[in-house]
């Protein structure tokens, strides 16, 4: 162990330091509490053996400083008091001291106390390690709990949390955003003709195309069975442009769609777009209604909810 030995008396310090070294530990002698604190801050220290009465910082103050640090590493603190000083010993233990030794310290006593100190610091170290492990697991679990395992996109939980954040930014900083709700056309026929595994595969490929089309601030989620929601921090015109770009990219990916009715043979998407106005529920319903319209108008197309402006550039290109 690394053991800091603090005493203003050079001879007492020498005896303690020699005893600590003789027991196989590394002794770090300090003349004052201030010096000891610097040692503790500069390197890993397992134990501090400190005199109570010293000019400047007392042993008790040193202990309080060490306990006040924001550190996971535990420092075992031993206070050395005079024989008739049970009051100081009591105050010390109450203030965070682990053990009290009586002056003059007998080397054999020191050996016993350091064995205890080693056991306690080892326990603290293992607890700190376990704590760090748990924190890592928690972070991993939190991410896993918010991810759709099939597509790797965010799930509904993640979507709900993110939408709240988007919404609060919109309300506070007037940052507009919009949503695009995608649905794979005739997905049931794909599952029926080629099996659910083929359906899952197609869904994964669609998700990959969507992911590639997103910019850093955009988010995509698996909304339901074969429905994906994309959230983009932009005005509805740009949201619509991005949504239609995604729709075309999926079509160009030419993912086979066995069993599909009609002339098409590849996977296509219908999409409903809505500006995020009002409550979350309100604009999600608007996007859903627009998606329904896109379906009923013949699929593989986009409809923008409550469109009160023209989108000539989109109309011309589709």
């Amino acid at each position, binding site marked *: 162990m690394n053991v800091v030995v603090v*005493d*203003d*008396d*050079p*001879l*007492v310090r*020498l*005896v303690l330091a*020699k*005893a600590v*070294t*003789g027991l196989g530990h590394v002794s770090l002698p300090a003349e004052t509490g201030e010096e000891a604190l610097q040692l503790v801050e500069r390197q890993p220290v397992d134990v501090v053996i400190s*005199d109570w*009465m010293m*000019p400047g910082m007392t042993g008790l103050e040193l202990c309080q400083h060490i306990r006040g640090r924001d550190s996971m590493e535990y420092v075992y603190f031993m206070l050395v008091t005079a024989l008739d000083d049970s009051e100081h010993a009591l105050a010390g233990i109450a203030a965070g001291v682990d053990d009290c030794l009586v*002056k*003059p*310290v*007998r*080397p*054999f006593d020191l050996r016993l106390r350091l064995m205890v100190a080693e056991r306690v610091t080892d326990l603290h170290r293992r607890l700190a390690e376990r704590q760090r492990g748990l924190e890592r697991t928690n972070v991993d679990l939190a991410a896993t709990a918010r991810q759709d395992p099939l597509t790797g996109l965010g799930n509904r939980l993640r979507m709900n949390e993110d939408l709240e954040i988007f919404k609060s930014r919109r309300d506070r900083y007037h940052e507009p955003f919009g949503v695009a709700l995608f649905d794979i056309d005739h997905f049931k026929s794909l599952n029926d003709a080629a099996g659910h595994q083929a359906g899952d595969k197609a869904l994964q490929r669609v998700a990959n195309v969507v992911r590639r089309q997103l910019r850093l601030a955009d988010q995509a989620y698996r909304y339901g069975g074969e429905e994906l929601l994309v959230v983009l921090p932009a005005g509805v015109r740009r949201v619509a442009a991005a949504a239609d770009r995604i729709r075309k990219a999926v079509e160009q990916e030419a993912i086979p769609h066995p069993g599909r009715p009609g002339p098409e043979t590849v996977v296509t998407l219908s999409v409903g777009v809505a500006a995020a106005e009002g409550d979350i529920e309100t604009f999600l319903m608007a996007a859903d209604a627009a998606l329904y319209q896109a379906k009923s108008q013949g699929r593989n197309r986009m409809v923008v909810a409550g469109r009160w402006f023209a989108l000539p550039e989109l109309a011309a290109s589709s």
Partner: protein
Amino acid sequence: MREHRGTATDIGASPETERPPVDETVIEQLASITDGQGLSVLSELLNAFLLAVPARLEALQTAVAGGDLSSVAHQAHSLTGSAASFGARGMADLCRLLRAAADRGDLGASRVLVGAVLDEFVRVRSWLVAFGSRT
């Protein structure tokens, strides 16, 4: 320091002293401290004690001669710890009394006690030297 040496040596050598100036069990404990090779560091510790204390006693004399009682109190406290660590109980007790005298501002008692501490150290030194030649 020097002016006390004559008397002190007489006391240290006097055979009628009942209690030895040094508690041998403490020295035995110090003898159990070893270095990295498992060898006792006792002689190193005793040498450090015998070398360091005279200079500190001189400083104590200077402080009491100058009437600096707060310095006397501080030094006496520090010497208490040193003496006790080496088993010099009588010297530690005298240092404790000196500290108390200095704390209550009693310069006369402080002077007397500094003299007593010096005398006691000479006894301690003789004992340690004799112990060293015995082992």
